[in-house]
């Protein structure tokens, strides 16, 4: 168990190192001199180590990261850590909110489809789900906005200000969460996966035996589904994070996706690096959690 955990940790750190190195190379492959692009004097460029060779710049950046110092924005000098701290909560809220809604819709539909594969209602629901899922998030986003603007005459992309007001808050936060939950391909993937798992569990011998004994099937059923659902949810977080850039942009939602878009347009390399590293950490931590949870739930995996 300890060896597994250590191996996972080493793999985790190796992944972060590779991701950061790859992104560092990619952003520095783009043409133009960073100091010139941002009109930085040789003095400022020196302070930011921009006058050093690329490997040295990378190592210095890496060393600073260990002290949670991700550098400063080359656009306005804000510490990247402060930007991440300010923008990450919004993104996490959007990500986990949309994941929650996706699962809330997908679990009952997927279970129903898995247990009653021939039911007409299940087939109809599948058609609706797959249709929604196949619409790109940005298209769905614009449709939602067009309805909000055109039908309800409501400008919903202004962040609510002042004291908490339920409807203003909901109008601003709910649409992007729903768009990401319904339209990013995740919902269809969840429904398909859960229905297959439900079919497999339903066909398993222990369920048949439980059914024969006349005991309640749901506890066994749900326990068997927890692990695969968690698995697919974790896998989809990376997809959701990818969709965030577009959804946050469309809805003027100021999170990490929005920030990364701005940073890319302005060639704000420290910010791009910081966001990428944070995303990689989040995804890898969740995967690590997934592995540990799997090992904990299923004793066979400890072998």
């Amino acid at each position: 168990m300890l060896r597994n955990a250590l191996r996972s940790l080493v793999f985790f750190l190796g992944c972060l190192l590779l991701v950061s190195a790859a992104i560092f190379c990619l952003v520095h492959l783009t043409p133009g001199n960073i100091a010139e692009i941002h009109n930085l004097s040789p003095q400022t460029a020196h302070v930011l180590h921009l006058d050093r060779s690329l490997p040295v710049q990378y190592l210095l950046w890496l060393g600073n990261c260990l002290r949670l110092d991700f550098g400063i924005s080359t656009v306005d000098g804000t510490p990247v850590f402060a930007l991440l701290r300010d923008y990450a909560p919004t993104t996490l809220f959007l990500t986990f909110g949309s994941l929650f809604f996706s699962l809330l819709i997908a679990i009952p539909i997927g279970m129903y489809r898995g247990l009653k594969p021939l039911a007409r209602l299940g087939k109809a629901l599948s058609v609706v789900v797959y249709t929604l899922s196949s619409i790109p998030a940005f298209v769905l986003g614009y449709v939602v906005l067009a309805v909000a603007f055109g039908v309800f005459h409501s400008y919903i992309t202004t962040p609510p200000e002042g004291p908490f007001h339920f409807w203003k808050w909901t109008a601003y936060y709910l649409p992007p969460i729903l768009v990401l939950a319904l339209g990013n391909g995740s919902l269809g993937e969840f429904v398909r996966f859960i229905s297959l798992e439900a079919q497999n569990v339903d066909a398993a011998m222990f369920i048949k035996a439980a059914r024969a004994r006349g005991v309640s099937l749901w506890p066994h059923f749900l326990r068997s589904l927890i692990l695969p659902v968690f698995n697919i949810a974790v896998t989809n977080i990376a997809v959701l994070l990818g969709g965030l850039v577009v959804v946050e942009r469309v809805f003027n939602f100021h999170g990490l996706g929005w920030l990364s878009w701005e940073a890319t347009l302005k060639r704000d390399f420290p910010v791009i690096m910081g966001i990428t590293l944070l995303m990689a950490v989040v995804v890898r931590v969740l995967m690590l959690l997934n592995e540990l949870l799997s090992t904990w739930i299923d004793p066979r995996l400890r072998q």
Partner: protein
Amino acid sequence: MKWSDQYTSRKKHVLRGMASCVLAVILIPLGILAAPKGGQLTYAEPILPDTYNPVTTSDNETSLRLSELLFESLVYIDYKGEIKGRLAERWNTFNGNQRIVFYLRKDVKWHDGVPFTANDVKFTYDAIMDPLSDVRPESRQALGVIKSVSVLGDNVIRFDFNSSVADPERRFLFKILPSHAFQGKTGLSKFDKFSKNPVGTGYYRFDRETKNRDVMLSVSKDHYGGYSNIANIKMVYQPEVTLLMQSLLLNAVDLVVEVPPGKVAELANTGKFQVIPYNSLAFAFFGYNTENPILKIKEVRQAFTLAMDRAKMLDDIYFGKGELVSGPFSPASWGYNPDVAVWPYDVAKAKQLLESAGLHLGEDKVLRYKGAPVKFKLKIPVYSGNEGGLSVCLRFQYYLKALGIQIDIEHREYEKWKEEVKVKHDFDIVFAEWLFDNSSDISSLFHSAASKESSGDNFISYKNARVDSLLDKFSQSINHEVRRRLNYQLHEVLADECPYTFLWTLEKNAAISNKVQKVVVHPYRFFTFVNDWFIPEDERN
């Protein structure tokens, strides 16, 4: 009531009435009664400001507009394009424009209450010229003519120039910074605290930047000119055109500084907005690399210009929201020669010119020069907002195909485009736009000396002895009328030479809610006259 009381009462009424009349006669013309104070103006910008420090900004239009609200310069350009004093009360020039002395206002205070003095002006100049400052090279170049600066008292400052300078006061349009905010340290960094929390002398003071990057400004009540009518200004960032327009239509914002050409009519038709055209002294062009053996032939460049139906392009792509130009100035510029006609659309004449230049159409409908098919690389920078430029290049490709010329359009990310075009000169034709201030000085664009500079503006490597001579005279002259005549001649020569195909100046339009009144927009600094704008009390949200 007794008679005496009635009399006294009536007398009081009469006196009150007279006093009211006198007050009204005095105050109404002053505009005090007509312009109620208060309310908030919310305006949307499509890009974020990079800094609030006007000296270290990287040519960011949002920052420039904000700095117009927060900061002031010694002088400014008024409605008629004339120089007027702002922080400078008056000025005198000496020794044939080799020296200028500014007498500054004594009643100016920074937003933090510290009095404004000549030391602040000297500090700003020193900061711009300090090689350790994060300043655009162009800003330094403009002040490179200054030899020395002397503070002659709290409110008097003298600038000496290397040689005579035409309209020397026009060099002092830069915004003044408070020296006390930097403790006199002239090496300005974009990352100074000041860049996030600026202190100016303008009509509005900086309050805060919200987490959503909205900028909140409030009126400066200590302003020497009397404080501005609108109490608060909020700048919101909205990069999406669709959302930008919807925010205006649904009253989430009151002002959009640049309406896309296709939306102008729609907004005007609603009757809810004032659509205000303003000109940015810019023009778009196709530039020809004159190091290319074919493009260095004048007749070829003329033929290309004749082969394009520019009026149709302007109508189709920009909904006619602009004006064709015949030379290297915007029609709003004092250097524009109205007597030079725009080249017509004449394909037959274009073909004749190409024939005369030794380019012949083969049986395969391909134009050949010395036996080889004629084809060119057209490079265009790709950035948000240049979608119209892509359409323009496709039209250009279409028109030249009719002459038998193949144009390969190469899209480049902006920095890559700059590197390939300005540094490596690796292009045949470029599509770009120049944006000018009011100086109308085109030396860096067409002087042969500028073609030798790395990253210079004469990247087409244009060389013409007559143009060089006119540009030299322009630089040496200090008489505005002489300079105007020289620009007229330059316009004529360059229109004939066609180093560029001069295309058009696009009309910029701002849309502002009808609730905001007395709106006048500065041609390129936008908020210069914001102190006169007002929102009637019953229109405030």
